[in-house]
């Protein structure tokens, strides 16, 4: 692979991974608060549709509303993202209401919302299928984009990709270094103790579930307005499930979750490369391959077999790898909180 191709590939991995970064980090947020929002697949799908539809409709009225100002394209796309975030937050609130207030099985409520949102996206999105519409514009950062190698990879992207970088750093700092971040971890680990210290566990869980849902919704819109432009039937199929798996793969740690998302992006790029090398295999198979591979990776990393394999190593590297690979879920993940 020549240097130019390599740089272009790395840049596209960073850009294409942005939707999964938003969705996986959104889910990380609510899972650290103790709530599993299983509806990621459906939420991404519906918000991808709503994000595109909102931007598309507004774009139609654009000349009238904004009098042809330079800002019009930015406003329409931003409105699309806002609508998608709202949709994501609403779905998350249904999950929160069902699981926190009504104490239904979190997995059940999330699963129902997944199927419902997927079908709703097909039903309501039928008029937007394969229509050219607005998208996020390319935005190289002056000066920084001209740095050799690093510039074209990191700083010649669009606003959504930059935001994904900021979110990774921001969430890592939030969890590790801030008071609210510490409190959030408390309600996911020991809600009773957090309650005793005066934290309103129920309210906080609602808040973080809605916030997480909004981020997942942003990820959906990032799909239809930034990566795979437009809307088609089951536009984001499979990506939500992968985002959910990446949260576990990354051990609920923002940096490792981001690493997982980029790993999945690399798998997708590899599948495209492989396609040219294996002409005998039907082309329809290659886009499907990264999904089982990602889940397989999760399964290997998550299984007891890995622990056994690691125990064969000498103590030094074993400790290092163990710290890198293994992690425990928030202790109160998926459980119901009772005030006592």
């Amino acid at each position, binding site marked *: 692979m020549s240097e130019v191709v390599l740089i272009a590939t790395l840049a596209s991995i960073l850009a294409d991974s942005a939707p999964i970064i938003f969705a996986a980090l959104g889910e990380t947020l609510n899972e650290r608060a103790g709530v599993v929002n*299983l509806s990621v697949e459906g939420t991404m799908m519906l918000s991808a549709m709503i994000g595109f539809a909102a931007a598309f409709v507004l774009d139609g009225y654009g000349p009238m509303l904004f009098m042809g100002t330079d800002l019009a394209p930015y406003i329409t796309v931003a409105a699309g993202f806002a609508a998608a975030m709202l949709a994501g937050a609403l779905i998350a609130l*249904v999950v929160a*209401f*069902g699981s926190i*207030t*009504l*104490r*239904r*099985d979190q*997995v*059940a*409520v999330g*699963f*129902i*919302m997944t*199927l*419902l949102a*997927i*079908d*709703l996206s*097909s*039903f*309501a999105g*039928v008029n937007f299928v394969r229509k050219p519409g607005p998208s996020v514009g390319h935005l190289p950062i002056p000066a920084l984009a001209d740095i050799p190698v690093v510039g074209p990879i990191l700083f010649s992207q669009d606003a959504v990709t930059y935001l994904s970088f900021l979110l990774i750093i921001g969430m890592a700092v939030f969890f590790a270094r801030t008071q609210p971040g510490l409190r959030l971890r408390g309600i996911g680990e020991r809600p009773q103790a957090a309650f005793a210290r005066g934290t309103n566990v129920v309210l906080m869980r609602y808040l973080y579930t809605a916030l997480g849902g909004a981020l997942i919704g942003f990820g959906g819109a990032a799909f239809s307005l930034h990566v795979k432009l437009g809307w088609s039937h089951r536009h984001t199929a*499979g990506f939500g*499930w992968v985002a*959910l*798996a990446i949260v*576990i793969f990354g051990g609920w740690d923002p940096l490792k979750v981001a690493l997982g998302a980029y790993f999945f992006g690399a798998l997708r790029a590899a599948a495209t490369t492989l396609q040219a090398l294996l002409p*005998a*295999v*039907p*082309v*329809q*198979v290659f886009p*499907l*391959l990264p*999904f*089982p591979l990602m*889940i*397989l990776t*999760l*399964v290997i990393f*998550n*299984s*007891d*077999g890995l622990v056994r394999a690691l125990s064969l190593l000498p103590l030094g590297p074993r400790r290092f790898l163990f710290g890198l690979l293994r992690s425990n879920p928030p202790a109160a993940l998926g459980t*119901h909180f009772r005030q006592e």
Partner: protein
Amino acid sequence: MSSLAATERQGWVGRVLLVLGPVLLALVITSGILVLAGANPQATLLKLLAGSFGTAVKRADVAVVWVSLVICTAGLLVSFTAGQWNIGMEGQIVMGAIVATWVGRQFVDISGVLERGAPLLVIAAMVAGGICGGVVWATAAGALKVLGKVHEIFAGLGLNFVASAASIYLIFGTWKQKSGGTLSGTVLLDEQLWLPTLQGLRASPYSLGLAVVVVAAVYFALRGTLWGLQLKAVGRNLRAARTLGVATHRVLFSAYAVCGACAGLAGAVLVVGVHHRLIPGISSGHGFMGILIALLSGFQALYIAPIALFFAALSIGSIALQLDLKLDSSLAGVVQGVMVLCVLLVQGVRQWRSGGSGT
């Protein structure tokens, strides 16, 4: 999962309300969605009914979907009773269809004409092969869960992805039609290998019979056998069951295997009784719909048949909707999803109001 116990505590008036309340709520929500979509709710819902029960052909099509849903849900009841979310059912159906097709292809020539073997025996072998395919796929998910400690949702999802990639590989690769047939899918199998159907209809009395047998078997197995009791014990409290001497690993594996057998059977029936070949996405979401039906039934085998009939009717009726009213057929899934959500939430509200403790 104890919503069931709460239902049993109320009288029949309460129970009717518990059923009707969510249905009305779902109707209101669905109507709202339809109004937003610019459709007339009354006309749409009537059309939905006419589209599913209007003619003999449509009633037979409903029966075809019903068979698939009932078999899947019966299997899921077993895994749910053992406390397992067998979300991998979709992949198990696909695997069943793949193996059934593979068996069938051993007996036909390149254009699908039967070369050797008695047709009935070949059909039986296809069904048996399909069941094996489902069992293997489900047992793999079970092994990842029981031995590898991977959550069954991810084990199942991963295996779903593998199964669908395998089916695409076969359809567009190894088993590609030489003539480049107009429809995507493998070559149509000989008509002698088709499950006999009712005159001029798509429904087969044999598959209907199979569905009834499967659901009855699950009903009695869960109710009146030691195995059923062990499943329940494992599902309620795994550790307690182990302490009491239940071979929990074996019980869990058996739950996966039986559920996979049902999925494989459903996949095989889709091949021998419906499509007569392997097509992309042959499971048509029946595994996921089965989970909804199981949730809606409160995990009671008795209620599977009527609920599956309702789901199947919606699925078939929505096709007419697409043709006549230009509304997307995914409306069926919306109605189903809203319905199950309403039932679950209304149950929750009742327990919450009565101050009872939910699960």
